[in-house]
């Protein structure tokens, strides 16, 4: 038994249906329909098991973040991927799948996408006072500012205040990766 792309298309007429390289079917729905879509996948299509949620950042795309929800059907033994695109916020699906809780916090922490209606929308990986969202593609890599300075001669540092090691941001952009 399989969920044919046609069946997915008729279940979600406003979605775009396709199959990825790993033969897992996906449906791309508008961001405002995500909660309804996940709910119907669980209740009508039988995808009762929570697997995964993550995001992909594409600086050139509009909107830039693509969220990837992955569900599993315990009766048909198949995965289903639900995609949506957003710039900043979508509805939380924690009331449908309790397992989404930490996954949404992780996406919020590392990408800065907020989930409306999440019971505890706080950072999960990074320290609470961290600035920025590390998995964004324009997040600087290559160094981290430190609280101390290094001078050529540690004992005469008063004259050498300007000898700080320069911290330059490396932009992890698409051009640079070549």
């Amino acid at each position, binding site marked *: 038994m399989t969920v044919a792309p046609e069946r997915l298309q008729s279940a979600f007429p406003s979605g775009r249906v396709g199959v990825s390289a790993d033969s897992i079917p996906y449906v791309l729905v508008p961001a405002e329909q995500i909660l309804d879509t996940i709910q119907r996948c669980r209740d009508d299509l039988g995808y009762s098991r929570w*697997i995964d949620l993550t995001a*992909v950042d594409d600086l050139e795309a509009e909107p830039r973040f693509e969220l990837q929800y992955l569900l599993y059907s315990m009766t048909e033994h198949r995965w289903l991927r639900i995609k949506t695109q957003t710039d900043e916020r979508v509805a939380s699906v924690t009331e449908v799948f309790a397992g989404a809780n930490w996954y949404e916090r992780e996406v919020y922490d590392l990408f800065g996408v907020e989930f409306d209606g999440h019971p505890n929308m706080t950072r999960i*990986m*990074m320290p609470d006072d961290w600035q920025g969202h*590390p998995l964004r*593609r324009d997040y600087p*890599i290559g160094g981290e500012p430190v609280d101390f300075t290094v001078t050529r001669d540690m004992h005469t540092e008063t004259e050498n205040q300007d000898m700080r090691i320069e911290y330059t941001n490396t932009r*992890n952009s698409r051009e640079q990766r070549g």
Partner: protein
Amino acid sequence: MAIESQRKGDTLHINMGPSHPSTHGVLRLELDLDGEVVVACKPVIGYLHTGIEKTFEVKTYLHGLTLTDRMDYLNPMGNNLAYCLSIEKLFECEVPERATVGRVLLAELTRINSHLVFTGTAGFDLGASSVFLYCLREREKLLDLFEWLTGQRMMTSFIRPGGLASDFEPDWLKAVGEFLDEMPRHIDEYESLLTGNPLFKERMIGIGVLDADDAIRIGVSGPALRATGVAHDLRKTNPYIGYETYDFDAIIGENGDCYDRYKVRVAELREAVKISKQALARLPGGSVRTTNRKVMPPPREELGRSMEALIHHFKLFTEGIRPPAGEAYVPVESPRGELGFYIVSDGSGKPVRVHERAPTFANIQALPLMAEGGLVADLIAVIASMDPVLGEVDR
């Protein structure tokens, strides 16, 4: 246990961890205690976060492989395997039979490695320290075998996209056979110390019960899910690398308590020995490296004769492998559950996104459900029975 001695009404708010010995890594639990009873349990993670998923974006695919070992450090080969399967899916690359059977052997040996650590530490956490020593004695032999094969005891990076890093030596295979022959006797030994032990049963039976429906909603996988009575093993339901051709059972429990989780893992130890023996017996001859030159370099001797081989060699060593644009997620059944790498490629030599679906990340979300209402001493048994590896939670 660091006591903050901060009272909220009649309950005591304390921190357990982040480096409490029985939390199996740097897991912190914020507990509200009413006497000995856990009223609320809130796991706090992130202490081992090292930005591995970010690091992937600036590494070539082969460099990235070495990061996968470091996520679930008790299951390095399984992580290598999941990562390679996703990449191979993007390439549609054929892997020689010897490499595929070899992968089954290595994946099951690492499962034995991981479950030995579980059995030892589960006993140790409950005060049975001798079984810990016995389990680590056998694990030591296994690590010696890994070192012999790969040069590394833990961070093996041996399963590569397109096959294996190198072929098996006949002597190594013989040593593995001897190890597997003596393993069932050792498993009997552990079981004689734990399974029937009244003190151990007292601490495990009926403790930390997880309901099957909750487990499915939360995404709990692996032995923790099977202990609730759900017969879900990816090696059976969605077979990969030929698991459908091996004779083994998916072990399930009944009650979803700590004792069932323990029993499922010990029975899986026996099944893993069984599968490894079958893989060892059927290991065919031939190469362990694919002939797809876009994935693995051509043999050295071809370089002098073939211009094409030289180009492939040059491209692979300057740019790395370049999977076609697309996305792939090919999960495997790790000792802890469903483990998969979601890889997005844009056709260049470095991935756009690599995300690990880590089984422990979902599994320890269920910790409050199992711990709340129980005794604080039972919490130790609950954590031990979930077998968490914080390296793959925090990544």
